């Protein structure tokens, strides 16, 4: 069954991660910055990170549904562009906090607000400088059985429960996971 799909754990060489790569629990999210459900789950992810501290490694991969979310691809580009300037996670937060305004002009504003080189970032966004990487993320998700966003994998195992704090935390902190 698809829910049994195992996924390659976050790759420190290419993935954006928070926490130590050798932490006992790896939580991987496939998300889309224009997806409202992804936006709603962000505070939950942050709280789980706060609770689990060093026991958790969190990684994010892009899964933009570009036909239904016309700004999702450029938003993902902006996150990657910010990553090039050492600010992937601040931009990640910024985008989820501003899901209703992800046009190019707003993306440039956010880059400036984060103290980044906004001109360089927006050039990368418009030229699709990180399109291949974003598509790699998307394809890896499809292969692993991602069928929509947000999708979570806990130590490589797809999480099919409700996207709410209690069930997600319970699934993540099953005793067997922390050795």
């Amino acid at each position, binding site marked *: 069954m698809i829910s049994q799909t195992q996924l390659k754990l976050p790759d420190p060489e290419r993935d954006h991660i928070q926490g130590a790569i050798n932490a006992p629990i790896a939580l991987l999210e496939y998300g889309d910055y224009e997806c409202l*459900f992804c936006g709603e789950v962000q505070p939950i992810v942050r709280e789980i990170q706060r609770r689990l501290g060093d026991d958790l490694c969190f990684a994010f991969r892009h899964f933009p549904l570009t*036909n*239904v979310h016309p700004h999702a691809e450029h938003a993902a580009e902006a996150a990657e562009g910010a990553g090039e300037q050492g600010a992937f996670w601040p931009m990640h937060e*910024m985008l989820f*906090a501003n899901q*209703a305004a992800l046009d190019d002009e707003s993306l440039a504003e956010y880059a400036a607000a984060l*103290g980044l080189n906004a001109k360089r970032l927006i050039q990368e966004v418009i030229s699709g400088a990180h399109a291949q990487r974003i598509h790699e993320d998307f394809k890896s998700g499809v292969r692993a059985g991602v*069928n929509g966003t947000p999708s979570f994998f806990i130590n490589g195992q797809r999480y099919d429960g409700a996207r709410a704090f209690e069930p997600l935390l319970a699934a993540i902190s099953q005793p067997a996971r922390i050795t």
Partner: protein
Amino acid sequence: MTGDQDARASSQLRSKREGSLRDTQIRFRFLMPTTAEANTATNPKSGQGNDYKEMYSKSRPKALPSGVEAPDFTLRSTPDQWLALSEFRGQPVVLAFYPADWSPVCGDQMALYNEMLKEFHELGAELIGISVDGAWCHAAFARDRKLHFPLLADFEPKGDVARRYGVYRDKDGVSERALFVIDAEGKVHWSFVSPIGVNPGADGILSALEDLQNKQATLATT
């Protein structure tokens, strides 16, 4: 204020403007589970996702298995155009039966496949969606979701094609959420029936198409 706080403040302003849209979506979610919630319908321990169970009857699908001839059909693809399966002879076809336009899970599933057309085309395959909705309904749905593949109307006689593929739900008047990969010779290569509330994703389709490609490559070298 830091940039982050600033951003959040402006987000609140904006979310007021977006409020009505969000409210509609949230209200809608009470009626129909999201993908993840629907997925829990398959897990008896979760006690969630009952909405779909109540909405649809229990069914015992007898989808056509691999190896059998895929029944040919001709259905409306738009209010004034028709499409026949036999037109695709010589290349693999992915038939995605789904219960209804507009329901959230179908939307997610079709939105996902829409993003994957390039991958399907790279594997030489065409994708076709089929439901019992009429051609005008399909046209509105495809326009709204910006779908770039045909949706066929299994509308009259209602569900006739779904029936012939063994994936019609008599009690519900809709088809199963079922996938068929038809090979270049018009035979079923792979089929899969998903629980009706669960978006089956695309990994199974990709594996089936790759399998076909490998078989073809083997045939070509022997």
